[in-house]
């Protein structure tokens, strides 16, 4: 697998992208669902403002990592739904490896917390 390095100057951005891709790995979601689910699954550690969510979603889509489509549930407003693409799955794998390497390096310096 191609080695992927995190943008250390923009870790928050890489973190947000990883969170979105990982959540979409469980199935397609709407924007608001993504934000709420990430917040819920991280016990509130990652609170997404939707304002920051859209640029990340659209960027991931333009990179081909996710694909957006319009769903129209009966009697409801049309909604934008996002799904992980094959390319996105590969990118997620690369990001997981990159995060593991990053934290390993970090712990090598600062040490791990006592149990």
């Amino acid at each position, binding site marked *: 697998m191609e080695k992927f390095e995190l943008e250390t100057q923009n870790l928050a951005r890489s973190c947000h992208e990883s969170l979105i891709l990982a959540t979409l790995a469980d199935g397609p979601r*709407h924007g608001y669902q993504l934000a709420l689910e990430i917040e819920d699954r991280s016990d509130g550690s990652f609170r997404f*403002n939707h*304002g*920051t969510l859209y*640029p990340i979603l*659209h960027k991931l889509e333009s990179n081909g990592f996710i694909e957006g489509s319009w769903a129209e549930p009966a009697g409801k*407003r*049309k909604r*934008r739904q996002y799904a992980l693409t094959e390319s996105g799955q590969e990118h997620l794998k690369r990001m997981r490896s990159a995060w593991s390497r990053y934290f390993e390096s970090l712990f090598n310096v600062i040490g791990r917390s006592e149990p």
Partner: protein
Amino acid sequence: MSRFNAFLHNTGERLALPKATRSLILVEIASDLEELFNHYVQQGLSEEEAAARAEEKVDMSDEALTELVRIHSDARTWTDRIARRTQPFWERFALALIVLFFIAATTLDHGMRFFAHLTVFIWPIICILLALVVYFIVQMMRFSDHQSPRRLRDSLATPLFLGAASLVVGFAGTGIILYRTLMRMAADPEHAAPLFANAVLGTTTTLAIALVVALGAGVAWFVLAGRVARIEDDVARAFMEVK
């Protein structure tokens, strides 16, 4: 757009993007606002509080809006503009040029004699032309499915690529033929003049066909880009009409 009208209007004002793109983004934001509103109402908030909380959650900073504009303002924006504004004129002009070229080529020089001078590089150009025709037919058939304008737009680079490939083959072929002819002229100076004349005839006719194929690719791109733009406008209009 009901209760979030003012919010959406304000956000739209700050999104410096083409109408169709802006509309689609606003519809996405509007649907998320509604869902968040319902979520907060279910959590026990009053409608006013839920609406305020939803707007707060979805509010976009100037930085986020700039980022969105940057993402959607990629290289194809200027091509979109050209396609929207000049399509009818350029379509007519380029089509007229192609027709005139073929009439002139097939009638002025006793018909097929024009084509008798073509070099071997005509074959890849014919392949490119066939690929262009197949691509155009397939794309026209795909227009009946309006589900994914983005996908249609993503494939618009193909005719431009084919046109460029035709030009590259035409010019590279001209260079190669002329080089080989010059080598033969150096080896056989007595027949230099007819050799050179034949080479010039062959390369110019082949290059002319390559240019026409490139022009055809350009016309195909204008037609398809215009269609995609219309589909995007239709989709955006349809979405904005909801509620």
